[in-house]
Each structure stands twice: as structure tokens, then as C-alpha cells.
């Protein structure tokens, strides 16, 4: 077990390096010059030259990559010019809200999706399955940013049940219940698509597992159907579902970009959009690298969890 985790941790290094390479060289592709882009077209040539030197843009590309890599390993992602503070500080401030939102959504989507998928699989050909097909279809076809707006319109503006936006109330906010109240609409909106995907996958995996011989063996023992479904079939299905949950985490984090914009959630997605609109290259770079690294770690955890559940995967 420990050996497996260590092995996976070591295997993570090339992936992280790959991510850093891709991000760095994509950013280096910026037409013209980052210094020019930052300072705008009215900047004096001297200023541009000074910033170029400051950013190290006058050195060869490969050398710049290694300098940059050395810096980011120490947590130095440079300074955001639009916010005038270190990129890493801003990213870390924004990370918590995003993880709270994405994590809640993923948990919500997993529970709902797996439950719906199991029911649809065991009631195949029943009305539940038909209803399921319909709901999943709506789920994966709905633009989440629009759905968020509709929720705000209905539940916040019409019914007044939940706040319109933000993570905490402006006055006297910040308590646990206050955050929960703010979290409901964005996390439900964000969970819709993932629920559809997870439900669909759970259904098809369950259908596949339910045909296996050991399910027949479990039934031949006279075990109650609940035991057959949950203990024998679902556990095996879960082994295949978990890696997909890891991948879904990526889609949920990506989807958070829209939801944070709709609900003014102070997360990293909104930060990235603003950074792109203000051409704050270093902020985009830092945000993307950190989130991509977190995604790699999430997938690693999914793999380890799969390993724990399945004794056959050898070390």
C-alpha cells in the first residue's frame, strides 16, 4: 500500500513537469510581448525594456523556463500587476472558496448520480429508467451558467430563499450558516451536469456488473436483493466509477468558472476570467498551474482509493 502510494507520487513528477512546460510555453506564445501587453501600447520603449528585464524576457526561452520553474517550486509565481500583490497570495486566497464550491458540488453530484444510476439500473425498463433518461438528458444538455441565472431568478429574486450572490453576507456575514446559505444555489447548479454524467456512468456500469457470474452466485445463495445490489454489484461498480469521479472533479472545477461568475463567488475561476480580460498573464499562469496541480493530486487520490477498494490491483 505504502509502496504503491510512493510509486504513484513519483509518477506524478513527470506529469507536473509536463503541465509546467505546457503552461509556460503556451504563455510564451503570446503574440508580441508580455511586457508590451501589460503596459499597453502607449508605454515608452524604456519602460517596456525595463519591464522586459524585470520579467526576464530578454533571456532565451529555455533558460527562462528553468528560472521560472525554480521560482514556482519555491512558490514564487511573480507579481500580479493588476492587483499589485504576489500571484501566489491571490491564488491561495481564491483557492479555498473554489474548493468549497467544487467539493460540495462533487459530493452532491456523486451521491445523487450514483443513487439515480443504481435505481435506473435495477428498474431497467421501468418508469424510473425512462424518467432517469429524461433527467440525465436535461442535466447534460443544460448550460450551467443559464441554469444558475434561472435559479437566481426563481429562488433568490422571486422567492427570496437564498442570497443572490457572493459567499458571505456583507453585513454580519461569515458564519457557517451564512456560508451554507450562499453555497446552496451555486453548488446545486454546478452539480447538475456532473450528476448527469455520474448517473449515466453508474447506470451502465451497474448494468454491466449485474450480468457478471458472481451476482448470480450471490442470488443463488438466497441473499436479499439489497445485499446483492449494494454489497456485491455496487462495490464492484464503484471500483470503475471512482477514477471517473476524479476526472469529473476536473470538469466541476472547470465548470466553477461559470458558476463563480454568475454568483460572484470569490473563487479562482472568476479571478482567471478577470485576469484574462485585464491580460494579467502572470496571474493566469499561476492560477492555471496551481489548479492543474491540484487536479493531478485529486486523480492520484482517486487512484489510491480505487486501489484500497480493489485487492486485485497489485503493487
Amino acid at each position, binding site marked *: 500500500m505504502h509502496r504503491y502510494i510512493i510509486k504513484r507520487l513519483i509518477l506524478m513528477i513527470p506529469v507536473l513537469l509536463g503541465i509546467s512546460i505546457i503552461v509556460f510555453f503556451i504563455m510564451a506564445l503570446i503574440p508580441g510581448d508580455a511586457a508590451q501587453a501589460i503596459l499597453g501600447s502607449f508605454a515608452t520603449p524604456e519602460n517596456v525594456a525595463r519591464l522586459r528585464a524585470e520579467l526576464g524576457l530578454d533571456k532565451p526561452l529555455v533558460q527562462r523556463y528553468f528560472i521560472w520553474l525554480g521560482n514556482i517550486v519555491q512558490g514564487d509565481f511573480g507579481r500580479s500587476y493588476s492587483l499589485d500583490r504576489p500571484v501566489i497570495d491571490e491564488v491561495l486566497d481564491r483557492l479555498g472558496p473554489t474548493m468549497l464550491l467544487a467539493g460540495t458540488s462533487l459530493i452532491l453530484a456523486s451521491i445523487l448520480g450514483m443513487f439515480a444510476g443504481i435505481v435506473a439500473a435495477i428498474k431497467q425498463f421501468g418508469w424510473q429508467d425512462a424518467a432517469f433518461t429524461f433527467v440525465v438528458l436535461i442535466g447534460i444538455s443544460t448550460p450551467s451558467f443559464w441554469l444558475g441565472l434561472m435559479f437566481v431568478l426563481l429562488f433568490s*429574486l422571486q422567492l427570496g430563499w437564498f442570497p443572490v450572490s457572493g459567499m458571505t453576507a456583507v453585513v454580519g456575514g461569515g458564519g457557517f450558516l451564512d456560508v451554507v446559505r450562499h453555497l446552496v444555489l451555486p453548488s446545486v447548479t454546478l452539480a447538475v451536469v456532473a450528476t448527469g454524467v455520474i448517473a449515466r456512468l453508474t447506470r451502465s456500469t451497474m448494468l454491466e456488473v*449485474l*450480468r457478471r457470474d458472481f451476482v448470480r452466485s450471490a442470488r443463488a445463495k438466497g441473499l436479499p436483493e439489497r445485499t446483492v445490489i449494494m454489497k456485491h454489484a455496487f462495490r464492484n461498480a464503484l471500483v470503475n466509477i471512482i477514477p471517473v469521479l476524479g476526472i469529473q472533479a476536473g470538469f466541476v472545477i472547470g465548470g466553477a468558472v461559470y458558476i463563480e461568475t454568475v454568483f460572484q463567488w470569490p473563487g479562482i475561476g472568476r479571478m482567471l476570467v478577470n485576469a484574462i480580460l485585464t491580460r494579467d498573464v502572470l496571474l493566469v499562469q499561476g492560477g492555471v498551474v496551481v489548479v492543474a496541480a491540484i487536479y493531478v493530486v485529486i486523480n492520484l487520490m482517486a487512484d489510491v482509493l480505487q486501489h484500497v477498494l480493489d485487492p486485485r490491483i497489485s503493487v
Partner: protein
Amino acid sequence: MAVHSKFRRFFYNRLATVGLFIVLVVLVVSAAAPILPLTDPNQTVLTNRLLPPGSEGHPLGADELGRDMLSRLIWGTRVSLAVGLSATAIAALVGSLIGIFAAFYGGWLDNTLMRGIDMLMAFPYMLLALAIVAVLGAGLFNALVAISVVNIPFFARNVRGATVGLVRLEYVDAARLSGKSDMEVLFGELLPNVLPVIFITISTTVGWMILETAGLSFLGLGAQPPTADLGSMLGEGRKSILVAPHVATLPGLVILVLVIGINLLGDGLRDVLDPYLRSGALVSPRPATEVDTDLRRRLRSGDAVEPGTEVSPDGPGGNDGGGNDGGTVPLSVRELRTWFWQRSGRTSSAVRATDGVSFQVPRGAALGIMGESGSGKSVTALSVLGLVPTPPGRIMDGSIRFNGEELIGAPIERLRHYRGNRIAYIFQNPMTSLNPLITVGEQIAESVRHHQGVSRAAARERAQELMDKVQIPNAAARVDSYPHELSGGMRQRVGIAVALANDPDVIIADEPTTALDVTIQAQILKLLDDLRRSEGVSLVFISHDFGVISELCDRVVVMYAGQVVESGTVDEIYRHPLHPYTRRLMACVPRLGDRARALTAIPGLPPALDDLPTGCRFADRCDVVTDACREAPVELRGHGAREARCILVEETSA
């Protein structure tokens, strides 16, 4: 079932048709936008600001600049569609090329390309798109590029996977050898064959890509004014959501309907193109085999059920049998017809897996059921406790009595009471029949716990005892082993321990040694034989191998094409086979007890079970066939203990 599946097919086809209709309408309307009598979508009339839907001249109202919503929606849809479809086309083209080249050339090219693809997939999807937009700048074309790039990996992976399988096939080598150039092979031979995969991938990604491009526009990173797509309209309409909700609501609705249409169409397309879905692989069997409603009614009407033969459900251990007339014959099967219903198009036809099978298993006896694969022997065995998968299986006729109680149509609780308790199964492949994620001890113990209601600790102890009984060395340690940690022979011993868990009256063993090698096979047979005698349990032993059956069994039932064709004692069958089929089989068995011998070497194939001949089912392979054989169904001739289904058998000779 037939009704359900028809309904479902219809339902699905209908949905796909609805999808096609939606997509066509959207395509036609947006293509016709220039010739439709629409106001200029960019004409601002400030007096019309935020006009509500239903206003004169503006059926869908106007936006915050007084522009006509209907016109803007149609033009916006045009832009969204164009961008989404272009992104799909680019991703499909580039991704497929990468996939097909990587698979065809293999080696370092494959490695480099696929590592790169893996790297791209290490990013959360949306984040990579944002990074690309950050570099290229906000704009519709840049959004298109970003969405294309992030979707390339899906195509590359799927197409590579499909091509790798094809490249190994002989016809590709043949094409190469015939002097075709690489490009001719790639695009002439391979591409046409991976097209379905490309289309399947398109069908799963195109809706997503339209949503994502709209999303980027919504964020202000895609379409820039004055160009508007559905996403940017939605983004602008957000500002006036409170006073004029229609401005933001309508573009979103159009996206929703369009993507629903695309996804419905895509699902329909996959149903047709994907061989896995088409094969009906994704059908889950129900807890018990379905019994035909007509048969159910007949059984319920009473004349088939003998009253007063019910065994107490809580009978201790149950070894006392049932007491009355079921006492000497615990298990009797009469006229069993279990059919598989298969669909083709809108009609369903029956595969008559078992077609009137009867036999009895006396107390303490061992009955062999012998036949080729497809003869219906396993289906017969599984029918006893309703373990034939439904769909497609369905019991159409017959009666199965256990200690006098009718099992066909019995409530599922009754079946569960007997399953693994009074009647236990041993299955063919111990590897797949054991749950890979649960320890073998627990797989034995759960049956004990469920039927005897004992504590966890007691059940575990019992499991260990049972493992000792089936001669698993060091059972105390192996209790916590997982199936993959045991050898094939040990696994089947676990399978036998599961069967013995509750001291059953009948054990049904379905080819329990076929998956094992010969020496192990001998050990397992010996074990089964010993246990059967020491535990006093009746055994139904199913095999294609007369040698194996002759070692264990007293009586044999020979099955062919879903019917019993001959029955008798092992000795009678071996020395004086009556049916031409059995005679041929016995000719292949050189010596009683040669268990390495399988049923082979009979020329020809059994008839298709969904298209059976009127007369004798063996006629096409029979060496003494006459015209009379084909005229009418051949009945079993003889008395209960010695029967054969052949017109040449004299009633008296049986």
C-alpha cells in the same frame, strides 16, 4: 418483456427522431436567416428598450438596446452553431489524424503523440481552454480554437484505440503487401473502418462543444460586440435580469433545446453505430426468472398444485425432507420450457433453450445431465431456482417441485428461502463466480448468516469449518484471502464450501470442473463424490463429459437441442444406448471412466433453437434417418426409468 422492449425501442427511436427534427429545424432556420423577414438584429431603437415578449412587431420583445430579440436569437443561433460545428470539425479532423497516425506508425511517434495527449488531459478541461484564450486574447475565433484544442484528445484517444485493433488485422498487411502506399492504406482501408468511432465521438462531444463556446462568450471571452452568439446575448441579458428576464432567459432556452436535440440524435446514432450497445450487452437480469403470465394463471388456478405439501419455511436444517410424498423424490422437473426471447426489428422470436424437459432426482441420488453446449442443460439447472436471466429468459411452461412445493411462479421470498439453503449451486468458473472484492470466508459466511441468522463470529467459524471440510489446507489463514489469491482448484473448493454452507438437500453442480486442469479435476470430483455420500445430499451433475458423469452419477439424462433424448442408468446408457445420438457419443468414449474425453467428433451442428424442424431434432445429423423422422415431433418412448426419443426405438425394447 416483448411489450416492454418494443415500447422501449419505439421510445428511443421516437426520441432520436425528435432530436433529428429539432436539429433540422434549427439548421434550416439559421441557414435561412438572411432571407427571413427579420428586422436587422443590430438595429437599436431606444424607445423599444427591454420590450417584453408579445409586443407588436417584436414577438419575443427587445433587449436593453431595443434590438429585436427574435431576430437576434436567430442570428445568434447561426453564430453559435457555426462556431460549435467548426470547433467539432477541427477537433475531429486533427484528433482523428493524430490517433490514426499514432496507431499506424506506432513506435516513437505513437509514444510522443500519446504522451502529449495525456499531458493535455492532465489539465482540467476548461482551464486549458482559458489558458489558450488568455494567450490568444478574447474573441470568437480564439474561443473556437481553444475549444477545438481541448477536445482533440478525445478524438485522438478513441481513434487510436480503434485503429490499433485494425492495424493488427491481416487485411491491412495484405493491402500493404499488394503494393499500396501508406497513405492509401491509411485513408483507403483504415479510415473507412474507424469512421463509426469518429462519429460516435462527435455525437458525444458536439453538444458539449456548443455549450462550451457559448460559455466562453458568456464570460465575455468569446464573441465581441457587435457580433453576438447565444452565449454573449445571455451574458449581456444578465444585467437586466431583474426588469426584463426574457433577455437572458430566451438565449439559454435556445441553447438548451438545441443541445437536447443534438444529444438525442447522438444517442440514437450511438444505438445504431456502437456494436456494444447494439448487442444488448447492457441489460441487467432480474432477481428471478420471469414466469409467463399464462402459466402463472394456470398454476394459480389450482389443478397443478397439490395442496398440503408446503414445507415449513423455518424447518430446522430441513434434512427431514418434507415428510409426505415428496419424501423420496425431493426434486422433480416436468415439461420445463424455458425460452429466450430475442428481438429482431419489431418482432420477437423464441429460442427454445429447454423444450419440455422432465426428470426426477430421488433422495440421496446423483443424476447426471449430459449434453453439448447449447443443449439446454445449464438452462434446465438454472431454471430450478429461477436463476435464468430475464431478460431474455422466461419460463413458458412446466412444473418444478421441491419436496412437493411448486417452485415455478413461487414468490421470490420462497425462492430465496430455498436458494443456497435447501438447494445449492456450484458454478462452472470459480474465478468469475466468486466476488473478487470480498474475502472467500465472507462469501461463505454471508450465506450462513442469512439463512441461519447466526452471529458474524459464528458464521466465520462455520466458514472456516466448511473450508476444512472441502480440504482447503490452512483454512484458518485462507478465510481472509481474496479469490485471486487462491489457485483455480482452491477457488472451486470455496465454491463447494458455499454450496454446503447450509446443509442443502440438493446440490446442482453446473460443469464444476470444466474450467480446471485434469489433475485438479480428479481431486474435485473425488471430493464431491465423498461429500455427497457423507452428507447424504442429492446431486444434479451437469457435464458434457460422460466419463465425468459416469464416475459420480447413478442415472443419466441425455439432452439434445433443448430436449431429453434419452435417460437411463449410467450402465444402460453406456452399454445399450438407444438413441442414435447417444450411440454416437458412446462410440467416442473408449472406456468407462476415461474422464479426459469430451463430447466431440459428431459431424454437423444442432438445429437453431429459434427455427426448429417439425420432426426429430437430430435428423440432420442422424445416420439412420428416414423420411418418417421428419414428419412429426418424436415423443419419448419407454417407461419412466428408461426412455429414448427416436422412432426406431420399440416401446418394448425400452
